[in-house]
């Protein structure tokens, strides 16, 4: 047996949680640095995985399978491919940042940090699980720490938000669990790779597609299921918002790619137009609603709905470009929205209000803050040169090949994104300083800048040189598409170009 690297990856946060838990009560000042240190361990492990990952190899790497319970054929089955690799890395990076940004948590710090580290385990686990039950366990376990984080350290309306978040997403998961069990009962195994070979009838695929799809759709969230998100994002403490937007939402989109497209290809192809329709509605709706939000955190939350709509569109375009764009956009959204939430958290710590009208002219007193906010906002709005563009561009170009109308409508999202972000920026940062309280706001200190620095660097890096990331995604995406082609009458959309001119295909080589 090879060294269980991935098991180590998800056990390290648990170890961290234990270590933090052992901090004696009379030394509370140790909790923060210790938790921060501990959160670097999984990052190091994920770094090792990144380093050792064979680029260009299709299929899963670092696989490991240990049979757990023979009658159900449940096993500890893990592995990473290009899709999960990047999300793994995103998660591992966002956690130290989030923990570092949690300095202002003074109540029950220890429990908070433990919850954070356990949350990390769950989130990392989702991306490596190759057994459906295992996946479900990780998928669902993330709810508990997040629930605690929102409910205990959130702002005024936190209980409502926490309960809503928990119940809403758990509702989706319940249907998925039923679907998983049914699938396991049909296939006689819960192992993902074996289930790929189980033929499912059309109606079975439909039901299972919806059972899984609803869970993921709520998690993403897709348009009509999004209402938990603004509440949860808004009420959560900064780190909670960062992780919600950065990672948690990606569990849904990841699930769509990993399971809905591959396990139920027939249904996926059949319902793809509907999914694209919902995605487009989500893009425009989320952006339109974001424009008029009076609460800046809510605004960013709704912008997530819009952005996730892009990702969703890319996924269900089922083209190489769209799917790749979707995956890279998951990472991008995590970085840019994460940065935005961090920034909002930083000013919230100073002013304890998120209402846009309570600000105005902040750029004069906090120039560094304003600059970083604008940077993140533009990254979020898909400015070329920053990361958001790469994904959005790929998604649009890729989805146009399959759903031209949807892609055209989705492109209007770029206008709306500029409107809500710049308008918010205008109202918060520009003009004269309207409120006395804002006169004396301190600009970001070194710690805060350092927290944001890795995000800024990554935003720039992925915007300018996304090739390393894309090179890792593409073989995995190609495999998904191959499976779709095999299982259905789906085919790669015709470019209308002669074979020898098919440059996009040639460019993949």
């Amino acid at each position, binding site marked *: 047996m090879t060294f269980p690297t991935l098991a180590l990856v998800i056990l390290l946060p648990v170890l961290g949680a234990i270590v933090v838990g052992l901090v004696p009560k009379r030394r509370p000042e140790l909790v923060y640095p210790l938790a921060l240190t501990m959160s670097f361990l999984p990052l190091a492990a994920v770094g090792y995985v990144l380093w050792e990952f064979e680029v260009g190899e299709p299929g899963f790497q670092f696989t490991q399978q240990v049979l757990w319970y023979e009658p159900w054929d449940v096993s500890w089955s893990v592995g990473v491919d290009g899709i999960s690799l990047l999300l793994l890395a995103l998660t591992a990076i966002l956690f130290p940042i989030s923990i570092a940004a949690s300095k202002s948590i003074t109540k029950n710090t220890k429990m908070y940090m433990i919850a954070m580290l356990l949350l990390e385990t769950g989130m990392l686990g989702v991306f490596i699980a190759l057994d459906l039950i295992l996946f479900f366990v990780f998928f669902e376990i993330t709810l508990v720490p997040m629930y605690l984080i929102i409910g205990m350290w959130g702002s005024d309306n936190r209980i409502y938000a926490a309960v*809503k978040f928990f*119940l*809403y997403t758990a509702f989706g998961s319940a249907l998925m669990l039923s679907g998983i069990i049914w699938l396991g009962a049909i296939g006689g195994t819960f192992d993902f790779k074996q289930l790929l070979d189980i033929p499912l009838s059309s109606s079975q695929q439909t039901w299972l597609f919806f059972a899984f799809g609803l869970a993921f759709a709520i998690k993403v969230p897709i348009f*009509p299921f*999004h*209402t*938990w998100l603004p509440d949860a994002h808004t009420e959560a403490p900064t780190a909670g918002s960062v992780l919600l937007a950065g990672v948690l939402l990606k569990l849904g989109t990841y699930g769509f790619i990993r399971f809905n497209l591959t396990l139920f290809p027939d249904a996926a192809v059949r319902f793809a137009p509907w999914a694209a329709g919902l995605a487009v509605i989500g893009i425009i*709706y989320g952006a*339109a*609603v974001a*424009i*008029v*939000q009076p609460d800046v955190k809510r605004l960013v939350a709704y912008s997530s709905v819009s952005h996730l709509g892009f990702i969703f569109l890319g996924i269900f375009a089922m083209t*190489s*470009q769209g799917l*790749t764009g979707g995956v890279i956009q998951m990472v991008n959204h995590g970085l840019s929205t994460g940065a935005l939430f961090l920034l909002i958290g930083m000013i919230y710590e100073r002013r304890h209000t998120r209402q846009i009208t309570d600000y105005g*002219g902040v*750029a*004069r007193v906090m120039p560094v803050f304003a*600059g970083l906010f604008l940077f993140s906002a533009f990254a979020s709005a898909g*400015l*070329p*040169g920053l990361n958001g*563009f790469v994904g959005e*561009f*790929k998604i*649009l*170009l890729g989805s*146009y*090949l399959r759903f*031209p109308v949807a892609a055209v409508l989705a*492109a*209007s999202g*770029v*206008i709306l994104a*500029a*409107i809500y972000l*710049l*308008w918010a*920026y*205008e109202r918060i*940062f*520009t*003009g*004269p300083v309207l409120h006395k309280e804002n006169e004396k706001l301190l600009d970001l200190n070194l710690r805060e800048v350092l927290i944001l620095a890795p995000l800024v660097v990554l935003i720039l890096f992925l915007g*300018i*040189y*996304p*090739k390393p990331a*894309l*090179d890792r995604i*593409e073989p995995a995406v190609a495999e998904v598409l191959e499976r779709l082609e095999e299982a259905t009458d789906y085919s790669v959309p015709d*470019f*209308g*170009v002669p074979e020898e*001119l098919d*440059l*996009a*295909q040639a*460019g993949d080589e």
Partner: protein
Amino acid sequence: MIDLIWIAVALPLLGAATLLLFGKRFGEPNAGYFATALAAVAFLVGAIASIDFFTGSAHAEHVFLFTWIPGLAIDAEFLWDPLSAVMTMVVAGVGSLIHMYSIGYMHGDPRYTRFFAYMNLFLASMLILVLGSNFAVLFVGWELVGLSSYLLISFWFEKPSAAAAGKKAFIVNRIGDFGFIIALMLIFATFGSLGFEQVFEHADTLLEEGGTTVTLITLLLLVGAAGKSAQLPLHVWLPDAMEGPTPVSALIHAATMVTAGVYMVARTGVLFDLAPFSAGVVATVGALTAIFAATIAIGQRDIKRVLAYSTISQLGYMFMGVGVGAYTAGIFHLMTHAFFKALLFLGAGSVIHAMADEQNMDKMGGLRKVMPKTFATMAIAWLAISGIPPFAGFWSKDEILAATFNKGGFFVVLWVVGLITAGLTAYYMSRLMYLTFWGEPRWADGVKPHESPSLMTTPLIVLAVLSAVGGLINTPWRLSLEHFLEPAFEAVHLAHAPEGATPWILAIVSVLAGVLGIMYANRRFVSGELPDETGPMWDWLENGYYVDDLYGKTIVLPGKKAAEELAFFADTKGLDGAVNGVGLLVKQMAEWVKPLQTGLVRNYAVGILGGAVGLLLFILIRGGAL
């Protein structure tokens, strides 16, 4: 050398980053010198790299940097051909001058270094735009200049109007980009690539001439170009953009960025060639914009707004030029316009600077003697823009008009429009000059105008020289520019000026229009008295035909209202209400169930007995025992 053209981009980029991160270390004048030096070096790099084109010994070359987006076959790659060479030199050259000018102009600004960082960023972005070898890189530059424009317009963000103007510029630009992106999607879907070379090479095989696809692509590109170049109906942002510092207006909103649309149409000439309808639309839009903006410029009181509408109007000329296929003429006018409009703006800036930030021409007058250098240089630009030979504007404008006339048919109408516009242009520019420099001083109290320092006047002089003689590079007798650009337009059917006597007649007519305009202005303003310019018509003109209000009332307000309805009714009440409603329903069900638990033993016993009867009934019926 050509392989190193990326240095021209990298230097200002580096400058921007350095100034942003370590600007404070530089201090006030040094940051300006640093940035100016970088811009100048970029210009030098571009100039040296284009030497081979002058000798005609070089071909277009691709400079591959790195693979940017695999899967879309998009590389970070530059294309060095005569067109990009011209653009690079214009951009970097004018840019360097304006950088230099700004050293003085921005003196004492608290965010001095930041200004130069943004300027350098703009320069780099613009160079990326003109150097890109594919649509994606072009789009990168396209968006980045938008960003720089945004940053610079709202540079004095404490002024709410400045902040709003920046936002407006970016958003309106984004509306154009929307069209651009869709065009890119279409191009990618058609060609499987976004590279200029691949697209243009296969355009005639993959696209049918005048077909829907190519027409659609080009029209969408036009939307993008209209956004960037402030053409109808997306022109509204440019007048507001005057909220930015004047060097910004000169560089971005006169000389370079706004011409990106023209550049783009010229660059994609192959496609427009295949879509005559779109080309016609481009020309029409250009002509309409030209006359539309020119009429508005007549009624403006703010010196910079006059110039802004003038810019829009001149951009209309360029569109007309590229629309009729006179790409060289378009680029030529782009170039001369860059010289004289930058000069006009810088001169206006000098005036504003001298007048203690007064921009209203009603409060000026009589500056001729106080600011001789400014007056002299601006006068050259005035003549240039009015189309008086031999100044630069005459040559380029005339070429466009001639090419339009030569196209015949419907385009003759456009020529007439262009001609009228030429007259109007001469009139409103003269009006500007008379109001500012002639007559009695109408200065506000305490204003003591003075000539600007030499750091500011030097660029004026350089530009004045260029405005005066710049037109000579492409005269009917010596078509240097056209030949220079020829390799870039190999695949395009270039429109040419007519042969024989016609061009002479056309030139005379257009000069006449200019002279008429100047003469009428002379009659109206030479007395030094302000003519009465009130009344509804003037209101309409001064407010730009109330287009902003129209947009506000028909798009912005209803849009906002709709968004509010969506957010606070559909979302909160509808969707979220449904979700909460389910929760409430469950809770309500609990309340409904509660009374069943009466606490009475006999009721519970009923439950047991009832359950038993129910189960019995169920099992017996299912078991077939009944």
